[in-house]
């Protein structure tokens, strides 16, 4: 059990460092890093404080603390993925609206160009 919990500690630390580096290099915007940082911190706390994990396992109705940690990890990642899907959907809508607006403006510009008298 200790080995597995140490693995989760390492995983959460690696995730924290990766996210912080990504934010620093502007690969992830700050507002989108919050969900990942929250998930990594939750994993770190649960994997280090065994009494907390055992309380959580009791609440979930299992005597197996690592199983409870796996369940919590799965749920956290599902939530983060759901959040990512929402953001991608919003971006796609915005992208489509922008592409349509660019096409309409280009169309108007071409029409104006064709109407304008040629000089020279």
């Amino acid at each position, binding site marked *: 059990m200790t080995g597995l919990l140490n693995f989760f500690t390492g995983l959460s630390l690696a995730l924290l460092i990766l996210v912080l580096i990504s934010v620093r290099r502007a690969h992830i915007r700050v507002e989108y890093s919050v969900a990942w940082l929250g998930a990594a911190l939750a994993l770190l706390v649960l994997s280090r404080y065994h009494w907390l994990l055992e309380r959580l396992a009791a609440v979930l109705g299992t005597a197996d603390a690592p199983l409870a940690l796996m369940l919590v990890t799965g749920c956290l990642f599902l939530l983060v993925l759901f959040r990512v899907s929402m953001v991608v959907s919003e971006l796609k809508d915005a992208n*489509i609206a922008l*592409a*349509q607006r*660019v*096409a*309409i403006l*280009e*169309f108007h510009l071409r*029409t104006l160009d064709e109407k304008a008298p040629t000089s020279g």
Partner: protein
Amino acid sequence: MRTVSNPDSLLILVPAFNEEGAVGAVVREIRRVLPEVPVLVVDDCSLDGTPMVAREAGAEVMTLPHHLGLGGAVQAGYKLAFELGYQYVIRVDGDGQHDPACLPRILEALRTSGCEMVIGSRFLGGRAYPTGLVRGLGIRFFRLVLRPILGQRVEDPTSGFVGVARPALEVFSRSFPLEYPEIEALVVLQRKAFRFREIPCRFRPRLAGRSTITTLKSFYYILHVLLGVFVNVLKYEGRRRRRGP
């Protein structure tokens, strides 16, 4: 193409993606049937010579900066038509399946019926139009699903040969389904308490190219559209029925 104020103004909208083999003939046919009516080809970022061929045939061309899919292309055309003040827009696919000879009848139905949408149906008027097995089953399935939702039977729910009046144009320029839009668009209109009717129209085999909807994609189509229909049904809208003109 400029802003119009004519209360009967009509725009023919032709969405096209890699249709250089057909779009020229489609535009020329439309111009033969309705010589005074502007034709707008919305080029969905084709990789071939679609925009050039369409321009040479006499159409105005609006090119999207990247590929949006059928719904995105049609909506771009609706937005432009709405902003320019057009009263009616009829969509004709760029593959040549829709017979432009039906355009005057669709326009007449739009003007006289008071409906916000008129659908050119390949199944009305005693015509037997050949469809693939899966697609045929899909059409029958959606007839059954849509009957209670729309409150009326629709023979050809997947037809893209569609004319819309300005109130529907306004709705679609704000919100239009992006993939496989035809069926969902009917539900969107129903949620706004708009009316539609079908008239018989002749459909032909494609002039060139192949349909993007393969047998496998037909199953995805059915699932995708079914989900879209129920999402639209679940959306809350004011249910007050509009008075006819």
